[in-house]
């Protein structure tokens, strides 16, 4: 099996790589990629640019913007000529205005790459375009952190409106059989991802029941709403501080009798957590005990809070809860993929990764076990995994893009996190962008 599997992974992976679209002649994409390369090469420069991206929404004037930018660049020791020129602009008022305007425009341009629109209506063209290309979406509403009950209510209301808007958007689209049905039955077109941390200001790591109690009414209402409009509701996972609260809450609500027939709903499993296999035990035991008309969707991700988890653990003297070697994490990702595929039809499986090896592994494993391609969803992030998404779609696979929606101001923190992942040293995307040979990209984790 192992040899057959490796051969199949190679075959699938090479086919996908060959199907990647070419960007020759696309000046804007090339510019983006050059900025990303620059940031990836120098940690100090990367920090300076991220801090700038992060502060742009809070700046009050072009002068203020330029003051922050030059302040960050002062802390970069090796400055390319372009940065030295930028810093000289900071010496005069006119220069600062120009620099501030250029910086803000640069950030806004980058943000558009990741954020599909200010609200679901504005996102319509992008969502329609994806659907036409054979890619479904899960919309994620960006916003500031929730620190008050009012903010939690507003987020819940935005989610409810988004469910309506998405249902209307997708009603009007032409059929896409591959995206709308697996062997278990129909799949909702409209799909919204929500964060429990935005549904309550009361998530407390040492008292999970507080956040659960506070978020439960809002989440329950959203589940009802999703059921009414026939949409899928996916509950995102965040840092380990809230994992217990989020997972227990979602499983408890979905077990309530009123939700036995719907909506379609899902949770997230983070493969970078060392104890993620035990979390999967919990999820599968729940699924066995809780028959649902629409099986729980489990989205397997690597996890987006790696730096946070490592820093928090080191500051507190705790053992680091995440794998610190990429290969260990990748191996766990594959093991969890296998378990999830084998657990069907108890759950539906979504593999969310930009790692060509991980994706090819999931596809190959599914096919070798006699599974239907329709029973494996592959997810990518809009703005980062676009090429992979199109390659998967062109191979006839079921793809969903995770699409942030919201204004650029509120989306900045999100944006910075995505950039961090993209430019992290061991990222597949940066490897791929730098011409690492395909054999290496598809090699088993070691």
């Amino acid at each position: 099996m192992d040899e057959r599997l490796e051969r199949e992974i190679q075959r699938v992976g090479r086919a996908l790589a060959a199907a990647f679209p070419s960007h020759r002649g696309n000046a804007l994409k090339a510019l983006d990629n050059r900025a990303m390369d620059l940031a990836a090469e120098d940690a100090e420069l990367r920090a300076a640019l991220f801090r700038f991206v992060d502060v742009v929404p809070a700046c009050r004037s072009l002068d203020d913007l330029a003051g922050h930018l030059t302040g960050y660049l002062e802390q970069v020791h090796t400055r390319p000529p372009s940065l030295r020129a930028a810093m000289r602009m900071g010496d005069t008022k006119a220069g600062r205005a120009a620099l501030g305007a250029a910086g803000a425009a640069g950030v806004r341009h980058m943000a558009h790459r990741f954020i599909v629109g200010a609200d679901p209506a504005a996102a319509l063209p992008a969502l329609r375009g994806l659907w036409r290309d054979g890619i479904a979406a899960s919309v994620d509403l960006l916003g500031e952190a929730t620190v008050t009950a009012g903010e939690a209510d507003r987020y819940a209301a935005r989610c409810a409106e988004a469910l309506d808007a998405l249902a209307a958007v997708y009603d009007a689209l032409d059929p896409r059989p591959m995206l709308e049905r697996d062997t278990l039955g129909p799949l909702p077109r409209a799909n919204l991802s929500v964060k429990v941390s935005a549904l309550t200001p009361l998530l407390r790591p040492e008292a999970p029941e507080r956040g659960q109690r506070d978020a439960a009414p809002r989440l329950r209402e959203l589940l009802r709403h999703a059921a009414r409009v026939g949409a899928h509701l996916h509950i995102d996972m965040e840092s380990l501080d809230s994992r217990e609260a989020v997972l227990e809450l979602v499983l408890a609500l979905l077990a309530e009798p009123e939700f036995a027939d719907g909506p379609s709903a899902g949770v997230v499993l983070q493969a970078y957590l060392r104890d993620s296999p035990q979390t999967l035990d919990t999820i599968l035991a729940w699924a066995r005990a809780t028959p649902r008309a629409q099986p729980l969707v489990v989205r397997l991700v690597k996890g987006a809070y790696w730096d946070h988890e490592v820093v928090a653990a080191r500051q507190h003297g705790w053992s680091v809860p995440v794998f610190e070697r990429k290969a260990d994490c990748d191996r766990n990702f594959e093991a969890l993929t296998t378990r999830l595929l084998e657990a069907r039809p108890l759950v539906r499986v979504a593999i969310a990764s930009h790692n060509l090896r991980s994706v090819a592994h999931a596809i190959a494993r599914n096919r070798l076990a006699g599974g239907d391609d329709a029973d494996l969803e592959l997810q990518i992030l809009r703005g980062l995994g676009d090429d992979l998404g199109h390659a998967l779609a062109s191979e006839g696979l079921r793809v969903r893009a995770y699409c942030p929606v919201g204004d650029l101001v509120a989306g900045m923190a999100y944006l910075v996190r995505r950039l961090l992942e993209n430019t992290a040293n061991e990222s597949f995307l940066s490897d791929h962008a730098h011409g690492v040979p395909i054999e290496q990209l598809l090699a088993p984790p070691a």
Partner: protein
Amino acid sequence: MSLEPFANEPVLELRRAAARAKLTTAMEKLELPLRVPVWIGDERREGEELVSTDPSAPERIVALAASATAEEAGAAVAAARAAFGGWAATPAADRAAALLRAAAWMRERRAALAALAVRECAKPWPEADADVCEAIDFLEFYARGAIELAAGAPLLQVPGERNELHYAPRGVCAVIAPWNFPLAIPMGMTAAALATGNTVVLKPAEQAPGCGLRVVEALRAGGVPAGAIALLPGGGDAGAALASHPDVATIAFTGSGAVGLELLRTAADVAPGARQLTRVVAEMGGKNCVIVDSDADLDEAIPAIIESAFAYAGQKCSAASRVLVHEAIHDAFAERLAGAVAGLQVGPADDFATDVPPVVEREAQERVRRYAQLAAEEGAVVTGTPADAGAGWYCTPVVATGLPADSAVLRDEIFGPLLAIETVRSVDEACDRIDALPVALTGGLFSRNPRTVQRVVARSPVGNLYVNRATTGAMVGRQPFGGNRLSGTGTKAGGHDYLLHFVEPRVVTENTVRHGLVV
């Protein structure tokens, strides 16, 4: 003795259910009340003059303590003086070993000690656990520091003479401790004095004699001789008797400004029969300000300020009591902060869900309410949700705005869950207001501009400035803690130079020339 480099004792990972269960089990096993004696050498006199109760449920008695008389204070100092020669002559490594064994004793009892702090001082669980860890940290940190200090300090050497500087302990140290970090602070001051070879009379706060008992038990279990550490539970009289005693060489104090200044006055007045000047190491109050500039990330600033002002009901000397917000973001900030305060849960300390526990005693509750009343009269207040729980000394969190510049609310250390918001036109104006204060303990700044950070660092008089984080939670070895101006004597607990306040440098110069020969 070769020791591992110092590392902070890790707090419990309370986001995991198993860690929480460990604490609640310890609470079930906690047997109260404790009996706390006046404990001098091997003599224990028990009594019930002092009753320590649970601030979350005042009918629960946590400890029945004897209250030391002035005679007992004298006897304790005499015993400490008698033991001084032997302890001072004990090699620094052996003294350090005793402190490390005391740390091990506490480590074995972490959950039980935390449970006691929850009951006696209404420390919420995470803070009670952190208090135990900090006590352990002080033992480990000062043990290492004292070994290093025993090597003396290098001096310039020329042919024909040998110059040596070594540090000698000062003598008897009176430790007068507060209740708000009921294990860590008494242990910190005591451990510093003992590590450097002084003997100690510890007077714990009258609100926390039970925790004081555990501090002395830990040290004695670790092998500190009975004569070198005495326990003197009692009220202000016992403290005053210690402070004016001619044989007390050092007073180590953490507490209110009023008491601290009184101790400094008493110490300055050389007692009849005194043979040395009394040194005072004093850590007093503050009026801690946080600056929020227009570019601050409010998503992070608001939770951090809430924690700074309302955790442990604001009863930390490091707690934030004033926020100076740039006018450009004032309205958004005030609205979000008020909304966040409304969600705080006031309740008993042993409930993991509690955000704001009760204050320590009825007098404190009355004081906080007086200031809340004053703030409502002089400005406007937004209050949180009142406690939905029994008879504890609960105070509803308050945010005050629009106070006049001369308001007592902006000047006095209230030591409770009351936070004042002010508007400033610029960071420089905020710095001016902070500079006008006579106290300078902690400060906070939320800004994402490196140049603003530099400017505030240069202008800030405080002992501990926190940038883009909460103003509380100083860690031993990482954030040496202590204030300037009238906030204290400028000493830094948990820092490398703290031990120097417990020793006197002695220099020996020997002529090594004999009849023209350098020997």
